[in-house]
């Protein structure tokens, strides 16, 4: 029985009190139904995600051998995961050597508690945050607020999400689902400034507001794109400069990372840097690649006085020990989202949880248990565009199929579907039954009303097909009948 059928508490092996990933919009079918009819969403996606997919391919072509480089990147990640205990210990040792501190969080709650404890010990009341998907996973902001600490998102898209009480709809481009009118309304209301929907003006408003916050903040919390074991460093790739601000002005820097973000050596870093921004946004590099090693050194006049690295499990070890280990290669570039025909039609919010798109269709059931997310592995045409786009070659389609196998074995797939497939196997295993079922299909389908060789309405369970398109009417004679007749007429 798959380990992912029941969510379990990694610390005690028992039932989880809370899901590992927060689920915001649980009903995939309803979400997808609404989104597939949302013209505005599709126009926004056309303008963002689809363009990013094109430009990814163009800039990857600038590399001498992008496919070969992706293979190496995937192999480095696989090697690291296979030796994760070694590399995390090495990372820990080097962070400490550089004057930093390392904390280990088994669960989301623990991670939040650790960060709150650091804040309390350092007297931090105001926190500025640069983009961190892991902090969304742990619902860190809610926990900070409950503890009387004020978090301020400083990535423009995340700021809009925060003040609009919304959720990001993409791993890298958080507010592609919003139009400038909505953004203008949210931001200008929050900042109490005259309404505008002009992007440069809105960015300027945000810049002035956040400048003030950077200056006053006690603590900066950042995500981690890569953590280098050999040097005890964390790497942040940003465009706006907010990540640098969060790790320059405040006294305390807390970096929160999923355990899988570690890479072995500094020499490995260019492999990932050359693939990350190209895959995510079509840039050769982000504007700033920031390699942070511990707090400021003696004699330096800026930079944090304390550096804390919080390493999170929250279900990752369970995935590590499963046949889905390779999902932990993910560098959160979003290329699979951009390439996915399903994501392009349903948008990020439909997936319901923190991680959308093809990688989310794997991670959400893996973190939370298959039962609560039974649509995600099935809602894929298995076109393989995600695998083709993935800079670390995660075989997403194959793992979606494996999740479906887990679901079938756990009887999460409905009984009638299992029955149909079992019967179908019987039919396909013998010539006689095959011939009989074929005849039945032909007769049955040819009885249905049709026009110009197409059937308008199929009976259940295939009604879904004809709810949106016609079905070709089977001819009176199958190929094998025609072939048999031809052979007989030859004699």
């Amino acid at each position, binding site marked *: 029985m798959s380990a992912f059928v029941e969510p379990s508490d990694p610390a005690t092996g028992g039932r989880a009190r809370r899901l590992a990933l927060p689920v915001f919009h649980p009903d995939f079918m309803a979400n997808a139904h609404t989104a597939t009819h949302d013209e505005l969403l599709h126009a926004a996606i056309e303008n963002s995600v689809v363009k990013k997919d094109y430009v990814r391919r163009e800039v990857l072509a600038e590399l001498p051998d992008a496919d070969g480089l992706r293979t190496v990147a995937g192999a480095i990640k696989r090697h690291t995961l296979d030796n994760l205990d070694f590399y995390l210990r090495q990372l820990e040792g080097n962070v400490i050597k550089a004057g930093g501190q390392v*904390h280990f969080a088994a669960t989301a709650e623990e991670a939040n508690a650790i960060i709150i404890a650091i804040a309390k010990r350092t007297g931090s009341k105001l926190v500025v945050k640069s983009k961190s998907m892991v902090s969304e996973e742990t619902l860190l902001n809610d926990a900070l607020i409950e503890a009387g600490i004020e978090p301020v998102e400083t990535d423009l898209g995340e700021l809009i999400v925060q003040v609009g009480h919304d959720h990001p709809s993409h791993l890298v481009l958080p507010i592609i689902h919003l139009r400038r009118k909505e953004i203008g309304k949210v931001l200008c209301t929050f900042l109490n400034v005259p309404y505008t929907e002009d992007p440069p003006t809105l960015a300027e408003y945000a810049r002035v507001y956040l400048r003030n916050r950077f200056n006053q903040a006690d603590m900066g919390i950042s995500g981690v794109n890569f953590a280098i074991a050999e040097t005890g460093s964390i790497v942040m790739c940003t465009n706006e400069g907010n990540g640098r601000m969060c790790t320059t002005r405040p006294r305390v820097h807390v970096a929160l990372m999923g355990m899988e973000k570690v890479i072995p050596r500094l020499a490995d870093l260019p492999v990932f840097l050359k693939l990350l921004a190209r895959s995510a946004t079509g840039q050769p590099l982000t504007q700033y690649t920031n390699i942070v090693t511990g707090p400021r050194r003696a004699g330096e006049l800026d930079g944090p006085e304390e550096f804390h690295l919080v390493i999170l499990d929250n279900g990752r*070890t369970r995935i590590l020990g499963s046949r889905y280990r390779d999902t932990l290669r993910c560098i959160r570039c979003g290329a699979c989202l951009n390439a996915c025909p399903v994501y392009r039609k349903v948008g990020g919010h439909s997936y319901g949880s923190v991680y959308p798109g093809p990688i989310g269709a794997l991670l959400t059931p893996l973190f939370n248990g298959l039962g609560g997310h039974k649509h995600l592995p099935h809602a894929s045409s298995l076109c393989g565009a995600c695998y083709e786009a993935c800079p670390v070659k995660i075989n997403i389609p194959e793992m979606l199929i494996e999740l479906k196998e887990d679901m079938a074995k756990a009887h999460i797939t409905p009984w009638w579907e299992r029955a149909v497939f079992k019967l179908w196997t019987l039919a396909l295993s013998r010539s006689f039954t095959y011939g009989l079922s074929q005849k039945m299909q032909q007769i049955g389908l040819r009885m249905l009303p049709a026009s110009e060789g197409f059937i308008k309405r199929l009976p259940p369970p295939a009604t879904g097909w004809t709810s949106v398109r016609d079905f070709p009417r089977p001819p009176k004679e199958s190929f094998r009948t025609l072939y048999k007749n031809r052979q007989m007429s030859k004699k």
Partner: protein
Amino acid sequence: MSNRTDSAGLGGIGGDREGFFGRISAALGREGKAIETPAVPAGHPALDERLLRQVSVGDASLVERWVQKASGNSMVVRRVGPAGVVGAIDECLGKHEISSLLLNAEPFGTSLGLVEHLAGKGIQAFCWGEAGCRDRAFTANAAITTCRYGLADAGSLVVWSEVGFGRSSTLTAAVHVVILRASQILADLVDAFARVAVEAVDGAGMLPSNVVVINGPSKTSDIEMQLVTGVHGPKYLYVILLDD
């Protein structure tokens, strides 16, 4: 590796370290050996530079490529000989209303007498290292800095923090002027890290607290994918490329 535990002085904030590593070891099939530090793993994939390197050291016109790429990244590049540095600085700054300027550009600051020169232009310049420079950096309109390398593959600049060079210097002012010597231009990002590992490390072999690869002015496209320059980092990035 240090013997200090991660939770030293934090009253147990550190979390259950042994439990954490125990779960990883179990997941990797190393049950019962959780406490041992595993041996250095074999099997790190070989890195074939041919897959990775876009520009080689021996390639002609590294400088030309750097200029082309940097300009494409919205850096404004001015190529000058040693005598032209001050004039180029004046030209770049002249496009803006500058009242306060951070200087972090030794030895140029002293050798060119920049503080006095800028004062003559009505610009109050202060140096990184002076009292109060950190806070003044936050409100300065402009900054002039040196940098460590230029990278020809993508038109990047590399800087790192140290006692005499601040993180803020290349971050906080809206107008950032960089003095880059042509001899500092390396071929590729691959070379940058190889050099950093040798040139930037301290006596204990540690990297500087903050190494930054800069690829242009700060920007965002979060709002309907429309490009806006100058968010939290510099909006205008000038590079004075000194032929040497």
